């Protein structure tokens, strides 16, 4: 008998905790407003947020390949790589793992290149602590001008830039063109503004590499 009361008590405590947790994590609603005082006390002891474990993405990234004719700078075009992959991906939903893998590869290496640039800048800053911001900014991309020092991420994106170029211009040789990579962050429109068609977002240019040659295909 005593054992059953003990089990029921433990179950009741857990049930109360789970209910309070559910209520605490829900967006603002009448029940939560009514119990706001209790929720504050609960939060002091058992603070939790889903975002605590998985911060929601605040922005979408766009990866641009910009191509320019080495002899005629007016002959140039831009490709947003992820958009093309996404278009292909939507054509065959569920059975689109190959496009998913390709997207993962391109994104992984774009982030990798971003991290390499950040790390390289930090190395220069430590080696030359008195250097000016202007010098640092100029030198950050310095290692991308020397093919020996290219990180794997840049080599992969360069190879892919060559493939994208060849797809769009199957009869043009890549040797006549140069390219650069830009990573742009486009903030996600806040949920409360989702219906505002004229809502403005501020795009950020995370990096833009110097011009480099395309691989021979």
């Amino acid at each position, binding site marked *: 008998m005593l054992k059953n009361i003990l089990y029921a008590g433990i179950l009741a405590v857990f049930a109360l905790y789970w209910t309070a947790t559910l209520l605490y994590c829900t967006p603002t609603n009448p029940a939560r407003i009514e119990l706001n005082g209790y929720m504050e006390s609960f939060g002091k002891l058992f603070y939790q947020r889903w975002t605590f474990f*998985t*911060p929601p*993405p*605040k*922005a979408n*990234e*766009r990866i*641009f390949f*910009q191509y*320019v004719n080495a002899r005629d*700078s007016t002959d*140039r075009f*831009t490709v*947003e790589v992820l958009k093309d992959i996404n278009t292909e991906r939507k054509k065959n939903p569920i059975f689109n*793992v*190959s496009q998913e*893998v*390709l997207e*993962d*590869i391109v*994104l*992984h*290496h774009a*982030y990798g290149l*971003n*991290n390499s*640039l*950040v790390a390289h*800048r930090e190395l220069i800053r430590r080696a030359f602590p008195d250097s000016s*911001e202007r010098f640092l*900014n100029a030198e*950050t991309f310095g290692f991308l001008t020397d093919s020996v020092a290219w*990180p*794997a991420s840049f*080599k*992969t994106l360069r*190879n*892919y830039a*060559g*493939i994208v170029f060849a797809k769009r211009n199957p009869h043009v040789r890549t040797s006549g063109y140069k390219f650069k990579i*830009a*990573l*742009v*962050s*486009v*903030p996600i*429109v806040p949920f409360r503004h989702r219906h505002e*068609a*004229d*809502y*403005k*977002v*501020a*795009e*950020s*240019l*995370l*990096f*833009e590499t110097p*011009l480099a040659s395309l691989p021979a295909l």
Partner: protein
Amino acid sequence: MKKLIAHLEREVPNSLYLAFFRVFLCFHLLKKVILLAPSGSLLYGADSFVRHEDGSFLGIPLDVFRSHYDLLIPVYVFLIGLFLFGIGRNLTALILYVVFRLFQEMTGVVSNGGTTCWPSSCCTSSLPTATVILLSDRGSLPYREKWTIF
């Protein structure tokens, strides 16, 4: 508490569910292999455009494993099959774990859920030179039109 531990040492109650979990795990691994196998040449092939960072697994360069991915995949599937039917017990589980880790190391470029960090999120830094370009209307991509100095 001592009694409870002693009891658990004698017999594991509900051990049947461990078998259910093992079978679920095998189907999950099989699904991953079946879906990723067609992309094998892209991920590991020598003629792929992907260039990998140098790395090793148990002291052996990852490139050695990548160049033999077509042999490794059947081995992986075979081990999953053994584990599914409980053949080889703990030894199979250990070897399967090693091969699973090997594939994770080889396939680092593909996100496996929850490990991707965006430069604009909290866990990855961006360059201090990252600049706001301009305000744009939703859906438009002003960067596409913006060409900097060549």
